[in-house]
């Protein structure tokens, strides 16, 4: 048990002292994961909705693919992004390997299928209820997209939180494309991996506790914002 009490004490001290290195790590974790999940959301939610609203050849295949990609292994995404962004890779001239930008790209790729698959699933019911009414005036399917997304916004929000949860908890991809560089690409999860490898298990666990609390705060705050904006849960 002493491991856990040590970790709790370490976590409390780190927070109380506002450890500057920890602050940088927390800010970077939030910035990278929020940017990535927002990017995934902005691309994925219209796509997921379109899969419900439009009927076209290959639609079923796209839905299967999006759902299959829910299990996309972060370490594979990390490796692919690494090879693309490496100086010897096709996008090497950008010089963005081992930067926060590369980490955002990797996490956005991980988040997008989650958003597409979840939005598709949740919009299916909404469309079944409201679809005919929205199309009855002869409105185009494109015109039906904004109102149906507005009606199903709770579902969209859940999809966004799921993508954020995936991003903030993920370590396999960002440790490859970010390189875990101190003060630059070190996030909560890569810092935990590092402290574990240094054998400082109580510090690693303390960082883990802070990460969980942080993740809860972000999700809670999002819910409150959502409620204040919609007036409903």
């Amino acid at each position, binding site marked *: 048990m002493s491991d856990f009490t040590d970790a709790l004490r370490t976590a409390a001290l780190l927070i109380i002292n506002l450890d500057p290195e920890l602050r940088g790590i927390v800010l970077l974790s939030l910035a*990278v994961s929020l940017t990535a999940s927002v990017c995934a959301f902005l691309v994925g939610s219209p796509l997921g909705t379109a899969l419900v609203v439009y009927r076209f050849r290959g639609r079923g295949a796209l839905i299967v693919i999006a759902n299959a990609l829910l299990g996309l292994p972060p370490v594979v995404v990390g490796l692919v992004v690494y090879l693309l962004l*490496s100086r010897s890779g096709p996008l090497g001239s950008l010089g963005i390997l081992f930067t926060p930008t590369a980490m955002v790209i990797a996490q956005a790729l991980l988040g997008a299928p989650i958003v597409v698959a979840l939005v598709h699933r949740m919009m299916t019911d909404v469309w079944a209820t409201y679809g005919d009414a929205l199309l009855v005036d002869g409105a185009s399917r494109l015109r039906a997209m*904004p109102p149906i997304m507005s009606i199903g916004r709770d579902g969209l929000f859940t999809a966004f939180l799921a993508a954020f949860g995936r991003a903030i908890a993920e370590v396999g991809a960002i440790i490859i494309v970010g390189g875990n560089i*101190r003060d*630059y690409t070190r996030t909560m999860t890569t810092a935990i991996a590092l402290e574990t*490898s*240094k054998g400082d*298990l109580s510090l690693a666990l303390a960082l883990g506790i802070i990460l969980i609390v942080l993740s809860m705060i972000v999700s809670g705050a*999002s819910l409150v914002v959502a409620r204040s904006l919609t007036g409903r849960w």
Partner: protein
Amino acid sequence: MRHWSMKAPAIAVLISAATLFCAQAQAQEKSIVVASTTSTQDSGLFGYLLPIVKQKLGITVKVLAQGTGQALDTARRGDADVVFVHAKSAEEKFLAEGFGVKRYPVMYNDFVLIGPKNDPAGIKGKDVLTALQTIKAKAAPFVSRGDRSGTHIAELALWQKAGIDVAHDKGSWYKEIGQGMGAALNMAAASGSYVLADRGTWLAFKNRADLTILVEGDKRLFNQYGVMLVSPAKHPHVKKDLGQAFIDWLVSPEGQHAIAGYKINGQQLFYPDADDPNA
């Protein structure tokens, strides 16, 4: 109201974009990427040395702690400016392939053979080759890095010198974990296994459980570190001036003095030897 679901993320993206912008702006300052080994990071050497480099040279050094084999591969791909590793044979191969400009010896320490205090195989105080032969004969659990790191390369060379073809003879007692030094020590601590470690990481390691040094001081356990600039001829984007400035400082009397000054609990971890042409 209608599109609130877009608003909250939009605010979030603005905030995070601003933070990322700051992070990128920071990257515009003088900085180099150094591909190095887990031992230089896990031992705390870089945490101690890099603020001094920043202060003296104004260069921010971004360290990738990867293990020697992976660090050299990262440099081969052009994703680092400088490599700082510890496997002379692999470094010379890297130079011969034209990826490095010149190899500078920087410092050394030594490897130590670590195991549980009760030493079930009875290797304490033996020379390292006899110790390995004993571990093999008794099939005592042994954790190998298995990641082409400098320590792994050194371990394989020791097995060979002990007359054991470990690739062929390994049994369930020999666990290749494919991870860094710290992870190997964690595993040895949790499973009561023997493990070869660099002394620097061992001294800085916190989760020792009942592990202790059993074999040390053997000349064959010598561990030399070298540093090389990645060839600008192969990779034109390499920051050769900043990279060379960092290397020049490391091998200068001032840099060597700083390396000698890194201690944990009064124990020196690395011994500078840039002036030894054979190192």
